[in-house]
């Protein structure tokens, strides 16, 4: 990962990452501590086969949807506004980086302090990070847009007219596709918020998993897959206002009202202010000495080991994702899976990627016990599902010679080499996302940064929690920068990386 070296090639970068992952495996805690993981897994699969649909709490489905729709609505709306000054204003870029570097669950844990278990917490926990993500992606889309139409406008055309007539038509389609993809993500986020107490499907899933009511869990999962799988049917241009209005009306009623004003004042003015600074004389050097002696153990005993564990988990999961994607993508291609196998492969990968990683990790932890192994499995399944699916589409778009080899020869000597740059671009892009998720898994008991955040919140030390969350954000932003640098240096920075990227071949406009 030394960027000053002579430009590394694909092979060198791959070797670095593989070596980092192997080194991580040497120190990672991979014990299986439960005695009967297979028996539990069999019961879970039994639940999926014989789901108890009647046990599904109908309102939880409605609330999941309402939080997701309003979260994306607010986030995308704010993102669009922020995208306009994004390229020019550095403070906007920094603010957006900060917003999106903090995971939805961390946002929710902080918002809960002020807004309680309420609709506001649920919607804002999604809207805040999504505003940061949408601003960045919309800005990129606007930047990448074809300017041909703008150039032929007659001199003297006003800025608004130029935007509406020459710019917007060019980018509207891609913004719409990306926003639809965000809605899929937000359904996952919304579900996961239930795990910390908001009344979405995750609330009931957590209870069902915890108490072994697998038929109910299976039913909830199937309903969730159906919700994601049918989103193209119910998200249309004309349904958007209906969805937004419906979601606003369907928000869960507040049970008890948090005293928001007083809580906000206490939260900002007391709770998150580092303990040594509360009511202290800021001019007094003693105060700053106390601040340092407060901060130092947090740095050495929490941030440092937490970051190391987070990086270990992320690097192992990244390499495992790479291997998983290479194994999985042929399942979704015409040449390797055939006309019958391909649709099945696609369904498999769509299901895998629709499953929220956090829930997957929670489930694996219940089955295998608290070590890094369940977290690695969850991250690998989810991300390999996504990259495998995308690679499959690229593989199908490749023009092959009529006398191309078949089977393993085609795979190893033609398909993979031709797609390798694209493959690395996807992996490096997902590096940051895997890291963000690795940190949050600490809440489930893996000793990554989230583990310490969870401890700080349990001890009501919100000042410590905020420092830890900020540290997580800094690590995320650093990895994002590193990933960008590597992609630039490999000259793969112009390749598509997003799940909703530009259509890869004109014949198939399906933007999935």
């Amino acid at each position: 990962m030394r960027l000053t070296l002579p430009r590394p090639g694909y092979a060198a970068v791959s070797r670095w990452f593989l070596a980092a992952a192997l080194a991580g495996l040497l120190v990672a805690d991979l014990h299986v501590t439960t005695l009967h993981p297979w028996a539990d897994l069999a019961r879970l699969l039994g639940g999926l086969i014989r789901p108890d649909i009647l046990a599904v709490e109908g309102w939880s489905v409605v609330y999941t949807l309402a939080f997701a729709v309003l979260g994306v609505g607010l986030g995308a709306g704010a993102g669009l506004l922020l995208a306009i000054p994004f390229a020019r204003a550095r403070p906007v870029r920094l603010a957006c980086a900060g917003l999106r570097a903090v995971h939805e669950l961390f946002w929710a844990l902080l918002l809960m302090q002020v807004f309680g278990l309420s609709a506001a917490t649920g919607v804002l926990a999604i809207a805040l990070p999504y505003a940061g993500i949408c601003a960045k992606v919309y800005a990129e889309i606007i930047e990448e847009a074809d300017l041909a139409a703008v150039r032929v406008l007659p001199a003297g055309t006003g800025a608004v007219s130029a935007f509406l007539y020459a710019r917007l038509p060019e980018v509207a389609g891609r913004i719409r596709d990306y926003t639809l993809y965000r809605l899929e993500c937000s359904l996952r986020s919304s579900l996961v918020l239930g795990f910390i107490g908001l009344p979405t499907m995750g609330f009931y899933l957590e209870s069902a998993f915890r108490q072994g009511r697998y038929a109910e869990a299976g039913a909830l999962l199937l309903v969730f897959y159906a919700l994601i799988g049918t989103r193209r049917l119910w998200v249309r241009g004309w349904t958007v206002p209906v969805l937004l209005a419906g979601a606003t009306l369907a928000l869960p009623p507040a049970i008890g009202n948090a005293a928001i004003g007083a809580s906000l004042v206490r939260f900002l003015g007391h709770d998150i202010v580092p303990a040594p600074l509360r009511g202290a004389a800021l001019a007094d050097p003693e105060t700053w000495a106390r601040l340092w002696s407060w901060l130092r153990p947090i740095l050495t005993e929490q941030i440092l080991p937490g970051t190391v564990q987070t990086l270990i988990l992320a690097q192992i999961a990244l390499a495992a994702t790479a291997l998983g994607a290479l194994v999985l993508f042929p399942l979704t291609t015409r040449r390797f899976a055939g006309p019958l196998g391909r649709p099945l492969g696609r369904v498999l990968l769509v299901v895998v990627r629709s499953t929220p990683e956090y829930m997957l990790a929670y489930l694996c932890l219940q089955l295998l016990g608290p070590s890094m192994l369940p977290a690695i499995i969850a991250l690998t399944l989810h991300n390999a599902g996504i990259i495998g699916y995308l690679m499959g589409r690229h593989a199908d778009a490749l023009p092959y010679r009529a006398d191309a080899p078949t089977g393993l020869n085609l795979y190893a000597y033609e398909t993979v080499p031709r797609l390798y740059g694209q493959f690395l671009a996807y992996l490096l892009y997902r590096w940051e996302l895997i890291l963000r998720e690795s940190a949050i898994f600490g809440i489930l008991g893996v000793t990554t940064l989230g583990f310490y955040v969870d401890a700080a919140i349990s001890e009501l030390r919100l000042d410590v929690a905020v420092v830890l969350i900020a540290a997580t954000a800094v690590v995320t932003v650093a990895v994002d920068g590193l990933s960008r640098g590597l992609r630039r240096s490999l000259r793969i920075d112009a390749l598509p990386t997003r799940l909703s990227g530009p259509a890869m071949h004109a014949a198939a406009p399906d933007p999935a």
Partner: protein
Amino acid sequence: MLGLGRFGHFALGCLAALLAAGGPAHAQAAKAVPPFVFTGIPDQDESRLVERFGKVAAYLEAKLGVPVRYIPVKSYPAAVTAFTNGQVQLAWFGGFTGVQARKAVPGSQAIAQGAEDAAFKTYLIANAATGLKPGKDFPKDSAGKTFTFGARSSTSGRLMPEYFIRQAFPGQSPEQVFSRVGFSGDHSRTIQLVQSGAFAVGAVDYSVWDLDSKAGKVDPKAVSVIWESPTFPDYQWTVRGDVDRTYGAGFTERLRAALTGITDPAILEPFGRSKFIPVTNAAYEPLVEVGRSTGLLD
């Protein structure tokens, strides 16, 4: 940090918009007496929590003449947070979460505890495969095995066992004494994890152990109690100091009387308590000391 103020305003604006659109039901409810909302720490199987708190809600509503709602939470700190930000006025806290909550909300007071809570106990339980035998003294031969606490801020599942461990092994933290330390999240889960062998030893609330044993969820061949701790004060009902202003003078006393007046075994049984008795904040002072000495409290 600098942006947070502005963010706060943005958040408030959004919330106002949400509430304004939130429908007339909300506005109507605000005119009458606001519902009296309570919660409890999720210390065991959720079905039992729903049963016990559902009954308490119905009982209090009849006794107090105000609408009473129970709001479920997913973690101990979430219960404390709901209390500190005013979403709930009353909570069934563990000893330590109660101390945390009363420290964060000046004026709030512990009003009633279970008769058993004045002298509560932790059980150390062990998987049969460990060969650990029951004894009178802290089982020092558990060192080097895997160990699970309950929730991080549980009194009988974390605070007190950690204190006893530190006493038995001076100068060592639980992480140094045991080969692996976990937090199961609740007592029922602790029992399951030790019973399944996922952890060799665990610390569990004695009342939940008794309830789960009675419910037939414990396999005595797989897991057994190896040590009973000295006693300490634990669970209690804590109420915010501002309820008299909202629900009328003397409300706190009426609430205390209602709680200590519960005689219906159908309500008391899911709590594993024989009755509730009056209590004051002072009864929990020992836990403050223990909290400080284990570093869990400032």
